[in-house]
């Protein structure tokens, strides 16, 4: 009877489980099938010819992909450096102030990303908050830092900060104070404690934070459009153009598939290397 019950539970869950699996996979399958269709068709009833993937190399779309991945990588590294001390403070030092910081960071998520980025444009543009005041006070004007690659990376760091900060703080809180003190008692230097105790023990948090920020940043579009003045064309921009003004759904689908496979592969690799249960607070 016990065994039966367990089976019945599974069976009961099946209809809903099936709907969930289908609704998750169906759009991906449609994109995958569209990506092998001949150019500029709008239905799936055609002979696949895989030509869209050829275009990816011929037309230089790989450049956009490389730009996206490179900027995402730099933004992730920058975020790690910025967030580590902050996360350490939140997990170990700040005490009740941590709550204030958490609320402050979470509050920023309540405002749409586009609006926050426009806020930066108004701050940084020529005649904006910085340059405008500086010029009216000193009479000396300067060019705005907008519309280049650096500002896009700044935008990525700014927008995705919470996605690195919180997992990192969670990861650092998993490092027992005793371990750190024991290492110090045994003569480890500050550097050795960081490299040999804190970083390995906080690895699940580092991995989750890095994956989240990298995956989001690689598919980001608004930072390049709003702050960067499209100084570089990111892959998400090319995907949008293919689906809209290009009216070439197979090309858009193929570009999406390339991004999905790279990001998906990376995420699976990353997740398989860490103990997700540990960071979720469950027993190891």
């Amino acid at each position, binding site marked *: 009877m016990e065994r039966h*019950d367990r089976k019945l539970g599974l069976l009961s869950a099946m209809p809903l489980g099936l709907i969930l699996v289908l609704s998750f996979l169906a759009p991906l399958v449609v994109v995958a099938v569209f990506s092998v269709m001949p150019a500029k068709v709008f239905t799936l009833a055609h002979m696949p010819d895989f030509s869209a993937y050829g275009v990816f190399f011929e*037309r230089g779309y790989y450049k956009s992909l490389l730009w996206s991945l490179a900027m995402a990588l730099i933004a992730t590294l920058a975020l790690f450096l910025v967030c580590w001390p902050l996360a350490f403070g939140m997990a170990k030092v700040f005490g009740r102030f941590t709550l204030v910081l958490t609320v402050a960071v979470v509050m920023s998520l309540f405002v749409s990303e586009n609006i926050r980025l426009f806020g930066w444009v108004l701050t940084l543009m*020529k005649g904006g908050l910085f340059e405008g005041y500086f010029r009216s006070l000193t009479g000396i004007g300067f060019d705005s830092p907008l*519309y280049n690659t650096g500002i896009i990376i700044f935008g990525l760091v700014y927008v995705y900060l919470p996605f690195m900060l919180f997992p990192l703080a969670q990861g650092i809180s998993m490092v027992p104070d005793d371990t750190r003190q024991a290492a110090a008692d045994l003569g480890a230097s500050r550097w050795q404690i960081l490299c040999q105790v804190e970083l390995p023990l906080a690895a699940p948090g580092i991995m989750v934070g890095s994956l989240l920020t990298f995956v989001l940043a690689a598919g980001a579009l608004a930072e390049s459009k*709003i702050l960067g003045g*499209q*100084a*570089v*064309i990111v892959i998400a921009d090319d995907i949008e153009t293919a689906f*809209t003004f290009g009216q070439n759904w197979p090309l858009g689908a193929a570009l999406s598939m390339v991004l999905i496979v790279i990001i998906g592969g990376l995420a699976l690799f990353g997740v398989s290397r860490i103990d997700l249960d540990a960071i979720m607070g469950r027993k190891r």
Partner: protein
Amino acid sequence: MTVTRRRFLAGTAATAAGLMVAGRMSPARAARNDQMNILCWEGYNSDGVLGPFRAANSGVTVRAESGTSDPDMINKLRAGETSVWDLINVNQPWARDQLYPEGLIKPLSKERFLPYFDKMLPEFAAPYPLAFADDGNLLGMPQRYGPFSFVVNTDKISRETAEDQGWNLFLDPAMKGRYGVLTYDNWNVIHMCLTAGLNPFAAIEGENLSKFRDTAMGIFGGAKLLTDDLVAMNTALINGEIDAYFTGGTYTASPARYDGADNVRAITPNSGPVDGKGGCVWVELTSAVNNPDPSSVAEDFLEFVQTPEIAKAVAFTEGTYNPVSQMGNPDVLAQFDSEELNAIQMDSLAEEMARSLDYDVVTSYDALIDIYTEARRT
């Protein structure tokens, strides 16, 4: 509680019954005359337009959704939303080239709508030939339109200089880093052809393709910023970040002008490569979607937007301000005050129209958009 097989089956049956009931509660298919859905550029979805229509048609549920680009809206119909929408409002080449040939829109009744052309501005009264398909069917009603070439800050570049130089302005080495490109991609393709001295609406092949490539590279290479946001572009123009922007017109300049920035001015070149014309003009058509279960209210709405007050509301909606073809009717023109007419550059509208080509189907679009996106990346 232990679950027996009987109880499990009973539960499954109840769930199935529940799903069936839920299925039956989905909207009834008959009697679509109690609703009307329009997919449009911003304006037709505003309270100023829909409010009076709702008041005049109580009992009809009117829904409107605004798109931010022609292809975005067309993609919705392609994806099967023909059964949702009754009217679609896009620029005329998209209606003639994409929607009609693919059976996504259907012709309007000429008997009912041709008389409305008589009261339109001279450019449209003929009636406007591009409102018709090659087979002679009436595809949609023209309303908003506007010359669309480029925009300058007249404090930095005078209107006369800009009009005389035309597109060459953007090839001038002195302009490097002093202009932006508004990334309305389909427009840029047209305008880059004109800049290269080519006719965008004729087939472009061989050597001319490399001419187009060089022009595209040159224009992207010299641009200070690229954005698809006209407000950001106007802001950069007003605060001196740039002195001009490639691709723009009354549609993009009017919001800044209405805000008092008269130095923002849409320019139509004095000369150009196609019959001496170098500018271009867009005209929207509002067409009946080929809905399998059509609503008769849709054509009523198309008539409703021809009335003076509503035509004005369509012209001056939130966001952008545009002339309307109905301004040929003195009653419609009387709705606009001098500030509003200044915002849409009414002083030069007719002559700009005379110097503009009709926005048409770009014959070699597939080849050109590929080169264009490639140039944009480098």
